[in-house]
């Protein structure tokens, strides 16, 4: 071989190796980009939402003034319940800031506290009527604007709509150590509200629970039955081919189409009430059915034929083979598939918007026929709200949703590793 050829090859080789390195780097960058997006997404949600788990409270000296309340300590319970607690917290604020005298200023002043403060005072007095006429130091829930200001606004960040006067009052309270953050239990025990400081996810979580219950109760039995039929009993003919094509196509139909189906069929034709977990669950079960069928079929095929043959050999009928042997062995795999399907249904929003689960509902549902909303829809509703405090709560609600998803997927993984037999 001449030197020139050798040189060409060597130079060429250098170029080819360089291309190889670039290609590899491109691959690394791609994987890195995917992982970076994951980290950015979680980091963003976490950093935005973590603040919502703590909530600002203001300590005030409350004189349970019988004159303001209009009841005395010896009054009966019903009287105390309807006493003027709204006036009480306002009177307390007036007393705390005596320099505020005009009507307009006072109205601004009252907005330092959440309207929930009246209910807190009411609950305290109901539990202990002797309080009336006494003076106590009590931590009361602050308004969401004060909350935002105390948590973020003091570092110069522009948040919320706190006026300068309000900021001055808030600073005064902070200087005296009368403002602190405490764990936001209301986030988990309250229903939805227009006031961010008392809005909670309980209603949405219960709604999701009822909806998923309906989804599971319909899609799991039907999906498993369909899978058994297609794997074990179906003759190979045009009809079963058609069914299979249908199942595969349904798995790829956009979820919003199922919402249209639910609206036209369940609500318009059958007259199922809107906004209830029953209709949400029905729609989601139609959507998850293909997933359940496909994963159930996979776990039925995974049961080795020798088991079937052995059972048939000792005189079991086809149905007995399936019910006594194939089904129990395939059950862990089927459950795993169903849980993954449920996890998808839990995060699904679009079809539920179509069937009216976007209503503003304060009371948590107590059954499948109560109007309700679900977690993802609650997130959608809160994300649409203008208040800065809702952005924080939206992220917190997303964190709750993600925790549920992680638990469900973790359960599926655990179930698979624990119960599934490898043949």
């Amino acid at each position: 071989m001449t030197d020139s050829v050798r040189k060409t090859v060597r130079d060429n080789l250098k170029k080819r190796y360089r291309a190889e390195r670039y290609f590899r780097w491109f691959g690394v960058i791609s994987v890195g980009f995917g992982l970076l997006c994951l980290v950015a997404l979680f980091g963003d949600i976490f950093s935005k939402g973590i603040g919502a788990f703590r909530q600002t409270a203001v300590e005030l000296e409350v004189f349970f003034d019988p004159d303001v309340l209009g009841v005395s300590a010896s009054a009966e319970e019903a009287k105390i319940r309807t006493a003027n607690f709204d006036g009480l917290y306002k009177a307390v604020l007036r007393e705390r800031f005596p320099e505020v005298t005009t009507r307009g200023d006072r109205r601004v002043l009252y907005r330092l506290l959440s309207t929930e403060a009246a209910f807190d005072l009411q609950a305290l007095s109901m539990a202990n009527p002797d309080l009336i006429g006494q003076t106590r130091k009590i931590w009361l829930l602050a308004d969401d604007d004060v909350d935002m200001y105390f948590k973020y606004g003091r570092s110069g960040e522009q948040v919320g709509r706190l006026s300068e006067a309000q900021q001055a009052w808030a600073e005064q309270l902070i200087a005296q150590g009368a403002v602190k953050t405490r764990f936001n239990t209301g986030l988990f025990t309250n229903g939805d509200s227009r006031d961010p400081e008392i809005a909670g996810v309980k209603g949405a979580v219960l709604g999701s629970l009822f909806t998923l219950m309906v989804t599971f109760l319909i899609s799991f039995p039907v999906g498993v039955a369909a899978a058994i039929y297609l794997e074990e009993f179906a003759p190979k003919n045009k009809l079963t081919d058609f069914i299979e094509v249908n199942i595969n196509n349904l798995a790829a139909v956009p979820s919003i189409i199922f919402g249209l189906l639910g609206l036209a069929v369940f609500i318009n034709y059958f007259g199922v009430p809107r906004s209830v977990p029953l209709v949400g669950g029905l729609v989601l079960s139609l959507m998850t059915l293909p997933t359940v069928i496909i994963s159930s079929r996979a776990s039925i095929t995974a049961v080795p034929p020798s088991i079937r043959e052995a059972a048939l050999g000792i005189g079991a009928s086809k149905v007995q083979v399936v019910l006594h042997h194939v089904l129990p062995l395939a059950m862990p795999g089927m459950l795993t598939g169903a849980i993954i399907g449920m996890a998808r249904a839990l995060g699904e929003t679009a079809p539920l918007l179509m069937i009216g689960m976007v209503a503003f509902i304060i009371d948590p549902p107590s059954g499948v026929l109560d109007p309700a909303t679900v977690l993802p829809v609650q997130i959608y509703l809160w994300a649409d709200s203008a208040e800065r405090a809702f952005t924080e709560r939206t992220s917190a609600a997303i964190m709750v949703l993600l925790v549920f998803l992680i638990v469900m997927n973790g359960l599926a993984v655990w179930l698979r590793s624990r119960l599934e037999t490898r043949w």
Partner: protein
Amino acid sequence: MNASTLVLVLIAITVASYYGGVMRSQALARPLGGIKHLSALPSYYGFMAVTWAVIPALILLLVWTIYEASVISNMVIALLPSETASLSEGELGLLYSRIANVASGIMQWDTLGEAYRPAVERMIELQTFTARYKPILVISLAVVGALIALKMVSAQWNVRYPVERIFNILLFLCSGIAVLITVGIVFSVVFESLRFFGEISFFDFVFGTQWSPQIAIRADQVGASGAFGVIPLLVGTMLISIIAMFVAVPVGLMSAIYLSEYASVQVRNIVKPLLEILAGIPTIVYGFFAAITVAPAIRAAGEGVGLEVASESALAAGLVMGVMIIPFVSSLSDDVINAVPNSLRDGSYGLGATQSETIRKVIIPAALPGIVGGVLLAVSRAIGETMIVVMAAGSMANLTVNPLEAVTTVTVQIVTLLVGDQEFDNAKTLAAFALGLMLFVITLGLNFIALYVVKKYREQYD
């Protein structure tokens, strides 16, 4: 009796009839010398009794529940005074709900005229009738069915065959539900779309370049004309999908190549599930991320270089959608890359090719049909994706291909048209179904093509 008590009673009857069947057959077998003298196992007699008890009762319950509302409303409307015959569908619906409210005691009598008294009384009468007789009839049917089955139990009756046949039929019906769903989807979107095309011409819909579905509710309202041209929506959908594909295809494909060809087993085992988490995150979360974080960031970046970026730019929605689809593309590509036979790889290495040359010149061409199929499936996902665009893309139709402007998509419009109050007699609501039909047809078409391409490819190596 409310619905849940009825269900509980039915469950109790089910359990009772099962044990009734089992015990009755055992009792019959005892004088004969044990259950080996029965024609079937005792549990089969139990199942037979359950079948007799539950199936007719459930059918009655279902039919009654489904038709109850419409039968009552027809009978009540027939009793309305004659002048209501000229009312439109919507007005009649309002009147009917007022009657229902009076009947249930929510509203007072005086809110309705005396002329409606027979209708209201009829309604109360019918409602008390179904409330009283529905549970009674359903439960007695269940009990009678169970008793008949128990009466029929005999040692000679080989009940296994009918029970297994019924089991088979039930399974078949369950798998038929998939077909029913498809039929339901097609019918619901097609019927409403046909009504829509009765009002708006098909060509105006498909070729129109104006989309402003605000139709006046009252005739004298300003801006009463609606325009239903779907082109701006399609262009918007395509724009966002293309942006998404620009992110998802290179990243997804290269990740799949890197993880299946270069990465060590340990790296693969860690990174692959991590990437798949992206697919498990609900789309609402992506939507929030796009609207709150990505869109402002892009806007700020655009301002930094002197570009005018809309706050609901197509770019933000498209980028985030692309991230969502990465794992979808990468797992589909992974499958097809792994399906390429090793002999092709070995042959290429044997000729002296480097690893990247093998991948680029041998593996990718061999896997191309599968990859194309996967990309098509991803496109159909992007077109049907709703929440990201609802939250991060605009809601005003805007015929443009500039990714920095706000565009709207088919799914966004379906949501905006259908969320809130709906009357099924105006073109605005029906338009959503026409859009749904279009979406269904497009995604179905893409899926068919994708599956066809993939299938064709598979035949090469099997």
